[in-house]
């Protein structure tokens, strides 16, 4: 609470920067409810919760060029302050944030964040999964993020983002980001990310891009007797993505190359793996959208780093149908076949999602 209170205080003490500007706000509520059933199970760990009811709350307060942006996710299982960012709008195209943010090199999360309504599929790709749901890459950082844009080649748009901050830590339960509401005293290391993408116009979702990250993650609990002496891991990520967003079709594709160095007391283990996915969405009559996603990997089975995450799906096939039955409300059904590091399972999901503002 101390950190968020401090940010709020800074925000309120800066009225001279936004003189004569009224305080304006925006509130967005993204609720959802989902249920999942698994079958044909040949894996010990499948998913964490069978049913989830959640509400994603977003609030922006703006006064002049300063803004405070927060996202709180409340569910029947947990409540987390996912983002809390104090931003300074330097120009039309550039904003500097400090606080807790979603790192920009996750292609999926950079576009969708936590709101279920704003993503067509019910689940996200395994490689872009959140830390508390078994994610293998750090997603939440506390530090600074610079987002910018520029017009290039007459009418094309170059969007860039640079981030750096306190990285999550690795525990026996998986990755845990730095918590602004309940800060811990464990040793945290830093991570740095860069992203650049090129789009045919200012407003286009179609585009291609590259991402790079170098994150140092401290291990705070031994995972197993073999993990004794495990101190930290360095994760280096390089990726490319290409998206097409037309009136009828939408295609998202991403590929990441991940190099990791696991540092033990007196020794080091290196490994490398590649993970990618392609999702295709087709708008159909009667407000229906059909979608399929193919996720796959190379080198995942032999990766000592990925073996720290039992639920990681190294390969997955997803197919689903979404029905936008009312304004800002949708029902979705999805089938998936997942191959994890120690087995396989199928699941079927149902979800209601909405947006209210």
């Amino acid at each position, binding site marked *: 609470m101390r950190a968020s209170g401090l940010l709020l205080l800074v925000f309120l003490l800066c009225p001279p920067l936004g003189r*004569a500007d009224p305080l304006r706000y*925006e509130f967005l509520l993204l609720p959802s409810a989902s249920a999942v059933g698994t079958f044909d199970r040949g894996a010990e760990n499948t998913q964490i919760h069978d049913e989830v009811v959640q509400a994603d709350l*977003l609030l*922006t307060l703006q006064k002049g*060029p300063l803004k405070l942006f927060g996202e709180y996710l409340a569910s029947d299982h947990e409540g987390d302050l996912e983002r809390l960012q104090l931003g300074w709008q330097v120009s*039309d195209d550039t904003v500097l944030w400090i606080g807790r943010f979603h790192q920009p090199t996750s292609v999926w999360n950079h576009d969708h964040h936590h709101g279920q*309504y*704003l993503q067509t599929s019910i689940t996200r790709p395994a490689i872009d999964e959140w830390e508390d749901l078994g994610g293998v890459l750090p997603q939440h950082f506390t530090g600074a993020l610079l*987002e910018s844009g520029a017009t290039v080649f007459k009418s094309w748009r170059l969007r860039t983002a640079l981030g750096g901050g306190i990285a999550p830590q690795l525990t026996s339960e998986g990755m845990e980001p730095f918590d602004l509401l309940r800060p811990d005293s464990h040793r945290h290391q830093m991570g740095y990310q860069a992203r650049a993408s090129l789009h045919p116009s200012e407003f286009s979702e179609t585009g291609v891009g590259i991402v790079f990250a170098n994150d140092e993650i401290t291990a705070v609990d031994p995972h197993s007797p073999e993990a004794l002496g495990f101190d930290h891991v360095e994760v280096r990520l390089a990726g490319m993505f290409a998206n097409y967003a037309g009136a009828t079709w939408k295609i998202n594709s991403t590929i990441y190359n991940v190099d990791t160095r696991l540092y033990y007391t007196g020794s080091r283990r290196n490994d490398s793996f590649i993970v990618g996915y392609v999702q295709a969405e087709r708008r159909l009559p009667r407000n229906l959208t059909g979608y399929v996603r193919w996720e796959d990997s190379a080198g995942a089975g032999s990766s000592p780093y990925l073996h720290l995450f039992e639920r990681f799906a190294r390969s997955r096939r997803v197919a689903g149908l979404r029905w936008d039955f009312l304004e800002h409300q949708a029902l979705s059904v999805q089938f998936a076949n997942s191959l994890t590091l120690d087995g396989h399972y199928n699941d079927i999901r149902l979800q209601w999602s909405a947006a209210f503002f």
Partner: protein
Amino acid sequence: MECGVLLNMRRALQLFILLCLAAQACAASHTLVLVVPVDSKVSDLDSLTVRKLFLGLPVLVDGSLLHPVRNRSDAELDPIFLQQIVAMSQSAYDRQILNGVNRQGWLRPVEVSTTSRVLDTLYADPNTVTFMWLHEVAHNPKVRVIRVLWGD
């Protein structure tokens, strides 16, 4: 006889002028203009910037963030707003606004449903930018017309 012809020509000319004036008045009532308060720092906004502004993207002029107000005082304004200003369907516009809030914490344009409230907002905030029918602001000294957005 000659006098009668001249009289008829004079009447025809008067009728023509009257028709022109009536047409002008009619056009003015169907001309949509972009307006700002008279003390606004805004001198001109191109169509791309206007589109950005009403899609919720930040637009700064001399360091001041502009505040778009979506005028919904007339049902006829909505289709013009979607077709001429933001150039997208209502569902695409909603999606754009939701994505902007979710990704960047952008603020969507304030929506105002009466002309008097649109004017009050203009008078109260020098950074306001909105659109109105020309005849509603033609002789208003507190409001400045920036550009014509649409006319039939």
